[in-house]
Every structure is written in C-alpha cells, then in structure tokens.
C-alpha cells in the first residue's frame, strides 16, 4: 500500500475521544430478563398499572419473536439474559436548579461538550440529558411551558400527562413491530416526551443527549414527539458512550406524530463507542425510528449523522398518510475500522400527492462495511406520489466496503420514483493535489468528506452542523482541522 493510503490509515485508526467512565453510583438491576424484571422496572419508576400491562404484553410478544438476521452485519449472538435492563444514577434527588446536579455528572456533560448552563439558553437550546436511562435534568421547561409545550423525560410525562402518553404510546411503532421494538417496549427505562400544542411554533431547538455509562447495561430509551395541527418543532438527539471491552446493546424507539400542517424536524448526531480497531467492544445500535405524517400537509424530516456504534441497524422512516404530506431523510453514515452499518429509511406513501426525498451519504474507511437499505413503497391510494432518492458512497482506502440495497414497491401508476446512486473513492491524486497546495492530508480528507456530506449538513441546525463536521473529523483522524 502506498504511503498516502498509509497516512490515511493512521488517521482513521485514531482513538475514541469520549471513552471515559464516570464514577456515579448507579442503582442497577442484576442481569437477566423475565416478567419479574419488567415488573421491577415499572415498580422502580412508580408507573401506573396500564403501562405495566403494556410492558408485559410487549414482553410476552417479544418472547415469541426471533432476532432478525437479514441486515448486512455480522456479530456473535446477543445473550439477552446477560444484560442488565435497568441502571439509574442512584442520587436522584428532586432538583430545583441545575446547581443541584451531581458535580461529577455535570463534569461528564462538560467533557461531552454539552453544558446545561445558561450558555445553552443563549444558544436557544433546551437539553434533556439522559444518562443510563434516567433523565437527569431538563432545562428550559418553564420557558417552554409558557407556550404550552411539554418537554420532559418520559417517566415524568407518564406521571404528569398520563392521558397524552397513553393515547400516543405505540401508535406509530406498536410493540409488535419488530424484535427490538418489542424488547424496548417491555423494558424501556426512560427517554423524552415532547408535545407541541396546536398552532405553536417551538421557539428553540429541543435537544437530548444520551450517554451509556454503567457497564453491561442496555440502554432502551423511548422518545415520543407529538406535533398538533399547525405546529413546528426541531429536535436534536446526540449520543455518546464510554469505552468498554464488551459490547453494549442500545435498542431505542422513536415515534413521531405530525397532525395537519405540522412539521417535525428530527436530527441525530450519533457517536456511540464504535469498538476498538480490532472490533472489540462498541455499541450495538438497533433502533426503530418512525414518523407518521397523519395530517394533511404535514412534514417529517429525519437528518442523521452516524459516526459511532460497532453495529448500526437503523431505518428512520416516514409513513405518509395525510394528503400532500412530505417525508425527508438525510443521512451521513461513517464507518471506520471494523464498524458495520446497515442503515437507510422507509418511505411509505399512503395518501395522495405525498412526496419523499432520500439523500444518503455513506463513508467507509478502514475495514468497515457500510450498507444503505431503503424502501420506497407507494400504495394504490397514493395518487401522484413522488420520491427522489440519492445514495452516494465514498470509500477511503482499499479494505472497506459499500453496499446499496434499494427496494421499490409501486402500486400506483401515477407515481414518480427516481433513484440515483454513485460510488467514489478518495484518490491519492486528490490528496496529493491538496498537499501540493499546502493542505495537509488530514485536512484534505476532512475537506473532501465534508464536501461529500454538504447536502446533509445543510439540513442540520447551524450549531449542530458545525458539531457534526467536527465529529466526522474526529472520527476520521483524531484531530480537527
């Protein structure tokens, strides 16, 4: 292999920056899963009877299901009995202000670069930080409350707005949906709940930061966002996890519901620990994300920047039920070393004049395997449905792989579906050209990768676009240009 490629190899094999462990006492259930564990979780969270019943139904259903093996990823079988299904930071006092948050926890957040301080207020970001499943602090609740917006941890929402939760929980992703969604429904420990009332435009970006801390715990959070008629919300989710030798399971469910003329923009920056260079450790990220455009003229837009996890299995989808509704999916998935990703989207057109756009950018480096898998489905009733899909792959080095699995099912002759795909490689010639203009290799790679992802980054809220660019830089080379 040439020197230029070697140099790229060196950059791409840099270490995970967020691999520190916090010494926060946690209250953890022993490993294993049976009905009793489900009851324990519900009990610890002081949940109402209906929710326990729902969990138990999900659990019983899950027991009858088998793990899916169709994705283009390879990993040893997961021992679901070896996982602890609940870990809550033990000190969980009622907090009146951020000053009361455990200092070490705050330090952890500082290391992650998210402060829960007033700075964020200036930046207009409300943060609901979830660490090991339990929401630690929610900021800006009061401001949001003035607009009638509910933004809280899932558990709080269950306590304070049980009717809303009960009405919508599982409406988009039923517990029968798939293996991991069923598991999540049985054991989910916390997550975020967001409700935007009719006609309200949420005045700030809502943000959640997830982080897996305790060893051997799976993180099963659940997010539910309901946007009532004519409302708008932009939501950002960021994720990191400390370095561990063993694999950790993350099986989340996200449900979005948009009523007439409502718009939900959901952005994810995912940086779970990807494992070491040889593929030891790392997060298994098996996530179900789905949005339902229930009302007419509604819109749901997913933007994701995925750089972490050992294994990613994730297809944020849109069900376009309302007439004229719009679904969008913008994705950057970067895999390095031994990471494997099988990710994409589903656009299901049910209503007339529904439109969807898919822009997927896959980047593979090291010995990683990156697959795009996407379904565009037009039902017979979806007259004049339109879809445009673009899937581009970028290869760095000569030991990685990129795969594309587009599925198209069209049941209406008036539909228009377009699919474009490209594969390219960062060439030594391109790197040398940059070098010859005084730009060093790592900056050149950055520049080319960022250029490749530009279409997706411009969909992210400004501040997070910068973050995402940096994250790609870090994931590829250990220093930021």
């Amino acid at each position, binding site marked *: 292999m*040439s*020197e*230029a490629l070697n140099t790229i190899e060196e950059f791409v094999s840099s270490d995970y920056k967020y691999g520190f462990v916090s010494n926060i006492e946690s209250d953890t259930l022993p490993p294993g899963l049976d009905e009793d564990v489900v009851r324990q979780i519900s009990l610890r969270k002081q949940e109402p009877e209906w929710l326990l019943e729902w969990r138990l139904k999900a659990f019983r259903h899950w027991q009858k299901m088998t793990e899916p093996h169709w994705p283009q990823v390879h990993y040893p079988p997961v021992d679901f009995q070896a996982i602890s299904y609940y870990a809550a930071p033990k000190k969980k006092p009622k907090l009146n202000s951020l000053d009361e948050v455990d200092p070490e926890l705050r330090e952890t957040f500082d290391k992650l670069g998210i402060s829960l301080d007033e700075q964020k207020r200036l930046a207009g970001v409300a943060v609901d930080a979830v660490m090991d499943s339990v929401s630690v602090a929610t900021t800006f609740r009061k401001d949001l409350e003035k607009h009638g917006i509910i933004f809280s941890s899932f558990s709080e929402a269950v306590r304070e707005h049980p009717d809303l939760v009960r009405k919508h929980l599982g409406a988009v992703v039923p517990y029968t949906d798939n293996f991991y969604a069923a598991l999540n429904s049985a054991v989910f420990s916390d997550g975020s709940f967001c409700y935007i009332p009719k006609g309200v435009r949420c005045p700030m970006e809502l943000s959640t930061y997830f982080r897996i801390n305790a060893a051997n715990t799976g993180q099963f959070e659940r997010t539910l966002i309901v946007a009532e008629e004519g409302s708008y919300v932009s939501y950002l989710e960021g994720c990191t996890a400390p370095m561990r030798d063993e694999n950790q399971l993350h099986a989340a469910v996200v449900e979005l519901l948009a009523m007439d003329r409502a718009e939900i923009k959901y952005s994810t920056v995912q940086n779970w620990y990807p494992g070491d260079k040889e593929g030891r450790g790392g997060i298994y990220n098996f996530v179900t994300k789905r949005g339902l455009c229930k009302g007419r003229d509604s819109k749901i837009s997913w933007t994701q920047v995925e750089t972490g996890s050992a294994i990613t299995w994730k297809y944020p989808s849109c069900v376009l039920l309302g007439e004229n509704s719009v679904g969008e999916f913008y994705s950057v998935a970067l895999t390095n070393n031994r990471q494997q990703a099988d990710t994409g989207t589903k656009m299901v057109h049910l209503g007339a004049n529904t439109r969807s756009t898919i822009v997927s950018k896959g980047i593979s480096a090291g010995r990683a395997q990156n697959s795009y898998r996407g379904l565009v489905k037009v039902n017979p009733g979806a007259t004049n449905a339109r879809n445009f899909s673009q899937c581009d792959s970028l290869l760095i080095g000569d030991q990685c792989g990129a795969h594309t699995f587009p599925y198209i099912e069209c049941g209406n002759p008036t539909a228009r579906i377009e699919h474009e795909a490209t594969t*390219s490689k960062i*060439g*030594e*010639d*391109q790197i*040398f*050209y*940059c*070098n*010859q*203009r*005084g*730009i*060093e*290799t790592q*900056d050149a790679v950055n*520049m*080319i990768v*960022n*250029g*490749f992802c*530009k279409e997706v980054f411009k969909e992210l809220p400004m501040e997070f676009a910068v973050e995402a660019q940096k994250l790609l830089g870090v994931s590829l080379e250990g220093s930021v240009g």
Partner: protein
Amino acid sequence: MSDPILDIRDLRAGVEGRDILQGISLTIQPGEVHAIMGPNGSGKSTLASVLAGRDGYEVRGGSVNFLGQDLLELAPEERARDGLFLAFQYPVEIPGVNSTYFLKAALNEQRKHRGLTPVDAMEFLTLVRDKIKLLELNEDLLKRPVNAGFSGGEKKRNEIFQMAVLEPRLAVLDETDSGLDIDALRVVANGVNRLKSADNAQLVITHYQRLLDYIVPDFVHVLMNGRIVRSGGKELALELEERGYDWIARETQAATQS
C-alpha cells in the same frame, strides 16, 4: 549573484524500481525562466513529480536545495507552503469541495506557515477577483467544486489562476500547454508572464516549442533518457522545433562513444 531559488545536483530518481532520472543538475536563479524540453518518456514529468514530492517516486541520489533548504526532506505540503507550486499536467477533480474554499484554505496555510494572519472571506474575494481577470476566467468558477466539470482549457487556466493567488517563488509548469488551443495557450502564457518577477522563477516543462513562443525562457534544457543532454538559450528551442530531437540523440551518442 544572489542565492539560487533551486539547486539540483546529480539527482537520480525512479519509480517502481525503474531508474528514470539518471543524474540531473540544474540551478535556477531568481528572475529566471527555464524550459525543460524533451521527447516522451525522457523524464520530464518525473522531475516535476520529484520536485513536488509525489508519493511513489524514490530518490536514489543527489540533492535538491530549495531556498536554502533540503527540499527532499520536506513533506509535499511544506514544499508548497515554502513557495513551490506545481501546475499539474492533469489537474484532478475534487467533487464537493468548493473552489473558493479550497483556494482560501491553501492561501491561509501558506500565510500561517509564514507567520501572517489568515485572510478573511472578504479580503480573499477582493484578491481573487483581481487575479481571475488575468486568466479571463468566469467568476462562476469560484462557486464550483475544484476542477469538477471544467473543460480541459479551464482546468489549465485554473492552475495558473491558483498560481496567481498563491504567488509562488518557484512555479513548475508541467506540460501546461498540452491540450490547449491557441487562444487558451495565449491566455495561460500571458498569465504566467504577468506573474514573473525579479524574485521568483519558473520552470516550464514542455514537449513542444510552441509554448515558448509565448513564454520566453532564459534557458532551455534538453532532457533525454533522464539526463540533461544539452543546455542553451531560447534559440535552442527553435532549433529543436526545426530539427526534432533525433539529432541531439545522435550527437550525444557520438560524444559518449568518442
């Protein structure tokens, strides 16, 4: 005489185990324009690549001094920041990377290296607007990705445009004339000539004499089989045009046999 910009001594280099440059010596003083001519396969582009530090070329012997430093010790980007510019024979396309962004990054790397403050977007725009006129290029080009979808002529003009912005001490033009029609050639040559000054120098590599009608060299060197077999003034180029390269080959052979 002042210190030379470039001083090559007995440079031997090759690629993939093949010897190509078999001992080249060449000294370039500030203000000078040197032309290297030679038939295909004589080692012209290898010389350009070795000077710029392209990967895969192995230096087997000799030395290259650039502005008082050992050039061969420097990484390609360090050579560039010190003022060595290569106008590529085949400029590569970099999709997704905006030309303005690219060139501003290049300029600021150079400025940073020299302890200067980086130029901001506005200053840069003023600068490039000036320079782009010199090459008669459309300003739209600045908004497009680097070389992506450029015509052959645009790519070559873009190289010289970049040279105009970066103001190198030594510009190596690797067959910049190839693939250019006569009008584009004139524009490129005009640009190069305007960039000439008393303290920079140019090394023009070409197969044909044609370019040298527009860029008038102070010295012409003939490269054959990895050696400079003859050096002279600009009239040597005209002689080559008239008589081809064969007579030099014959004379060189005769000289080595006698």
